[in-house]
Protein backbone atom coordinates (compact mmCIF):
# COMPACT_ATOMS: atom_id res chain seq x y z
CA UNK A 1 0.00 0.00 0.00
CA UNK A 2 1.54 3.28 -1.07
CA UNK A 3 0.81 6.51 0.71
CA UNK A 4 1.28 9.85 -0.98
CA UNK A 5 1.02 12.90 1.28
CA UNK A 6 -0.65 15.81 -0.46
CA UNK A 7 1.26 19.02 -0.40
CA UNK A 8 0.92 21.91 -2.74
CA UNK A 9 1.96 25.52 -2.79
CA UNK A 10 -0.70 28.12 -3.52
CA UNK A 11 0.21 28.37 -7.20
CA UNK A 12 -0.20 24.64 -7.63
CA UNK A 13 -3.50 24.73 -5.77
CA UNK A 14 -4.83 27.40 -8.13
CA UNK A 15 -4.18 25.10 -11.05
CA UNK A 16 -5.98 22.20 -9.42
CA UNK A 17 -9.63 21.44 -10.10
CA UNK A 18 -12.58 22.07 -7.84
CA UNK A 19 -13.02 19.12 -5.52
CA UNK A 20 -16.11 17.33 -4.33
CA UNK A 21 -15.84 16.97 -0.53
CA UNK A 22 -18.22 14.03 -0.37
CA UNK A 23 -17.04 11.54 -2.91
CA UNK A 24 -16.77 7.80 -3.25
CA UNK A 25 -14.27 5.29 -1.94
CA UNK A 26 -12.29 4.71 -5.10
CA UNK A 27 -8.63 4.36 -5.93
CA UNK A 28 -7.04 7.77 -6.21
CA UNK A 29 -9.61 9.54 -4.08
CA UNK A 30 -8.42 11.67 -1.18
CA UNK A 31 -9.26 10.37 2.28
CA UNK A 32 -10.44 13.46 4.15
CA UNK A 33 -11.47 12.01 7.47
CA UNK A 34 -13.22 9.39 9.54
CA UNK A 35 -16.79 9.48 10.82
CA UNK A 36 -16.50 9.23 14.60
CA UNK A 37 -18.88 7.61 17.05
CA UNK A 38 -20.39 11.05 17.68
CA UNK A 39 -21.30 11.20 13.99
CA UNK A 40 -18.84 14.00 13.34
CA UNK A 41 -16.06 13.72 10.83
CA UNK A 42 -12.58 13.85 12.28
CA UNK A 43 -10.36 15.20 9.55
CA UNK A 44 -6.91 13.76 9.06
CA UNK A 45 -4.00 16.12 9.63
CA UNK A 46 -2.61 15.10 6.30
CA UNK A 47 -5.11 13.84 3.76
CA UNK A 48 -3.79 11.01 1.64
CA UNK A 49 -4.72 9.44 -1.65
CA UNK A 50 -6.09 5.99 -1.17
CA UNK A 51 -4.91 3.07 -3.25
CA UNK A 52 -6.52 -0.15 -4.41
CA UNK A 53 -5.58 -1.98 -1.24
CA UNK A 54 -7.32 0.58 0.98
CA UNK A 55 -10.40 0.42 -1.25
CA UNK A 56 -10.42 -3.36 -1.11
CA UNK A 57 -10.07 -3.52 2.67
CA UNK A 58 -12.59 -0.75 3.25
CA UNK A 59 -15.20 -2.50 1.12
CA UNK A 60 -14.93 -5.62 3.25
CA UNK A 61 -16.81 -3.80 6.01
CA UNK A 62 -19.95 -1.66 5.94
CA UNK A 63 -20.07 0.80 3.09
CA UNK A 64 -17.00 3.04 3.30
CA UNK A 65 -19.07 6.14 2.56
CA UNK A 66 -20.81 5.62 5.92
CA UNK A 67 -17.47 5.46 7.73
CA UNK A 68 -15.18 7.87 5.90
CA UNK A 69 -15.24 11.04 3.86
CA UNK A 70 -13.50 11.11 0.51
CA UNK A 71 -12.77 13.77 -2.05
CA UNK A 72 -12.29 13.71 -5.79
CA UNK A 73 -12.70 16.21 -8.63
CA UNK A 74 -16.18 17.71 -8.86
CA UNK A 75 -17.99 16.13 -11.78
CA UNK A 76 -20.34 19.12 -12.39
CA UNK A 77 -22.72 18.15 -15.20
CA UNK A 78 -21.89 14.47 -14.90
CA UNK A 79 -23.19 14.38 -11.32
CA UNK A 80 -26.90 14.11 -10.63
CA UNK A 81 -26.53 16.61 -7.78
CA UNK A 82 -25.40 19.37 -10.15
CA UNK A 83 -28.23 21.84 -10.59
CA UNK A 84 -26.75 23.41 -13.67
CA UNK A 85 -24.83 26.05 -11.83
CA UNK A 86 -24.00 24.62 -8.41
CA UNK A 87 -23.83 21.55 -6.21
CA UNK A 88 -27.22 20.84 -4.69
CA UNK A 89 -25.87 18.71 -1.88
CA UNK A 90 -24.70 21.56 0.33
CA UNK A 91 -28.14 23.18 0.02
CA UNK A 92 -29.69 19.93 1.13
CA UNK A 93 -27.23 19.73 4.00
CA UNK A 94 -28.15 23.23 5.19
CA UNK A 95 -31.81 22.22 5.14
CA UNK A 96 -31.10 19.02 7.03
CA UNK A 97 -28.66 20.13 9.71
CA UNK A 98 -30.08 22.57 12.28
CA UNK A 99 -28.00 25.72 12.68
CA UNK A 100 -27.64 24.97 16.39
CA UNK A 101 -25.70 21.83 15.53
CA UNK A 102 -23.24 23.44 13.16
CA UNK A 103 -19.61 23.78 14.09
CA UNK A 104 -18.36 27.27 14.96
CA UNK A 105 -14.68 26.74 14.33
CA UNK A 106 -13.47 25.75 10.90
CA UNK A 107 -11.96 22.29 10.93
CA UNK A 108 -8.49 21.74 9.57
CA UNK A 109 -9.02 21.06 5.88
CA UNK A 110 -6.48 20.55 3.14
CA UNK A 111 -8.93 20.96 0.27
CA UNK A 112 -10.70 24.15 1.39
CA UNK A 113 -9.26 26.27 -1.40
CA UNK A 114 -10.51 23.81 -3.97
CA UNK A 115 -13.69 22.68 -2.22
CA UNK A 116 -16.92 22.97 -4.23
CA UNK A 117 -19.01 23.68 -1.15
CA UNK A 118 -16.60 26.31 0.18
CA UNK A 119 -16.50 28.02 -3.20
CA UNK A 120 -20.30 28.20 -3.14
CA UNK A 121 -20.99 29.00 0.51
CA UNK A 122 -17.72 30.19 1.99
CA UNK A 123 -16.97 29.38 5.63
CA UNK A 124 -20.62 28.56 6.30
CA UNK A 125 -20.03 25.32 4.46
CA UNK A 126 -17.21 24.46 6.84
CA UNK A 127 -19.63 24.69 9.77
CA UNK A 128 -21.83 21.97 8.38
CA UNK A 129 -19.24 19.89 6.58
CA UNK A 130 -18.05 17.83 9.60
CA UNK A 131 -21.65 16.76 10.12
CA UNK A 132 -22.02 15.33 6.66
CA UNK A 133 -22.05 11.58 6.26
CA UNK A 134 -22.00 10.73 2.58
CA UNK A 135 -24.17 7.63 2.80
CA UNK A 136 -27.12 7.96 5.17
CA UNK A 137 -28.95 4.91 3.91
CA UNK A 138 -30.06 2.81 6.87
CA UNK A 139 -28.36 -0.58 6.91
CA UNK A 140 -30.71 -3.28 5.71
Amino acid at each position, binding site marked *: MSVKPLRADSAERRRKPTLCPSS*RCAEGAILLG*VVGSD*AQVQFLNQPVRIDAE*FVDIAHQGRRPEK*RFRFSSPCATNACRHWTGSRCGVIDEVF*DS*VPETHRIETRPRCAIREQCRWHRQEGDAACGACPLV*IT*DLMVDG
Partner: protein
Amino acid sequence: MGYEKGTGSLFVADLGGFKLPAELEREVAGKIQATVMRALATVDFRGDIVRRFPGDSKIKFPDHTLGIWVEPEIPR
Protein backbone atom coordinates in the same frame (compact mmCIF):
# COMPACT_ATOMS: atom_id res chain seq x y z
CA MET B 1 -14.43 0.29 19.31
CA GLY B 2 -13.09 3.13 21.38
CA TYR B 3 -13.02 6.65 20.12
CA GLU B 4 -11.57 9.64 21.89
CA LYS B 5 -12.21 12.97 20.29
CA GLY B 6 -9.27 15.30 19.87
CA THR B 7 -6.57 12.77 20.61
CA GLY B 8 -5.38 11.31 17.39
CA SER B 9 -3.19 8.25 17.21
CA LEU B 10 0.51 8.92 16.95
CA PHE B 11 3.06 6.18 16.53
CA VAL B 12 6.63 6.88 17.54
CA ALA B 13 9.81 4.84 17.42
CA ASP B 14 12.35 7.09 19.07
CA LEU B 15 15.89 6.18 18.13
CA GLY B 16 17.40 8.99 20.15
CA GLY B 17 20.42 10.39 18.40
CA PHE B 18 20.73 7.53 15.96
CA LYS B 19 19.67 8.24 12.40
CA LEU B 20 18.98 5.49 9.90
CA PRO B 21 20.43 5.84 6.43
CA ALA B 22 18.10 8.03 4.37
CA GLU B 23 17.00 5.29 2.00
CA LEU B 24 16.22 2.90 4.83
CA GLU B 25 14.47 5.68 6.72
CA ARG B 26 12.15 6.30 3.75
CA GLU B 27 11.48 2.59 3.40
CA VAL B 28 10.56 2.23 7.07
CA ALA B 29 8.36 5.33 6.99
CA GLY B 30 6.52 3.95 3.98
CA LYS B 31 5.93 0.63 5.70
CA ILE B 32 4.63 2.32 8.83
CA GLN B 33 2.27 4.52 6.84
CA ALA B 34 1.02 1.55 4.83
CA THR B 35 0.37 -0.41 8.01
CA VAL B 36 -1.55 2.51 9.49
CA MET B 37 -3.63 2.91 6.33
CA ARG B 38 -4.50 -0.79 6.28
CA ALA B 39 -5.67 -0.52 9.90
CA LEU B 40 -7.56 2.69 9.19
CA ALA B 41 -9.43 1.03 6.33
CA THR B 42 -11.04 -1.37 8.79
CA VAL B 43 -12.37 1.13 11.34
CA ASP B 44 -16.08 1.63 11.78
CA PHE B 45 -17.32 3.83 14.62
CA ARG B 46 -20.89 3.47 13.35
CA GLY B 47 -21.42 7.20 13.65
CA ASP B 48 -23.91 7.14 10.80
CA ILE B 49 -26.26 5.14 12.98
CA VAL B 50 -26.42 7.75 15.76
CA ARG B 51 -26.67 10.70 13.36
CA ARG B 52 -30.31 11.51 12.92
CA PHE B 53 -31.34 15.11 12.49
CA PRO B 54 -35.01 16.00 12.06
CA GLY B 55 -34.24 17.25 8.57
CA ASP B 56 -32.72 13.95 7.47
CA SER B 57 -36.10 12.59 6.53
CA LYS B 58 -36.58 15.51 4.16
CA ILE B 59 -33.47 14.78 2.14
CA LYS B 60 -34.84 14.15 -1.28
CA PHE B 61 -31.86 12.57 -2.95
CA PRO B 62 -32.20 8.88 -3.76
CA ASP B 63 -31.13 6.73 -0.85
CA HIS B 64 -30.19 9.87 1.09
CA THR B 65 -26.88 10.06 -0.68
CA LEU B 66 -25.08 13.26 0.18
CA GLY B 67 -22.22 12.58 -2.14
CA ILE B 68 -21.14 12.49 -5.71
CA TRP B 69 -23.43 10.56 -7.99
CA VAL B 70 -22.10 10.00 -11.47
CA GLU B 71 -24.11 7.87 -13.81
CA PRO B 72 -24.02 5.12 -14.93
CA GLU B 73 -22.79 4.52 -11.40
CA ILE B 74 -25.57 4.34 -8.92
CA PRO B 75 -25.24 5.41 -5.28
CA ARG B 76 -25.27 1.79 -4.10
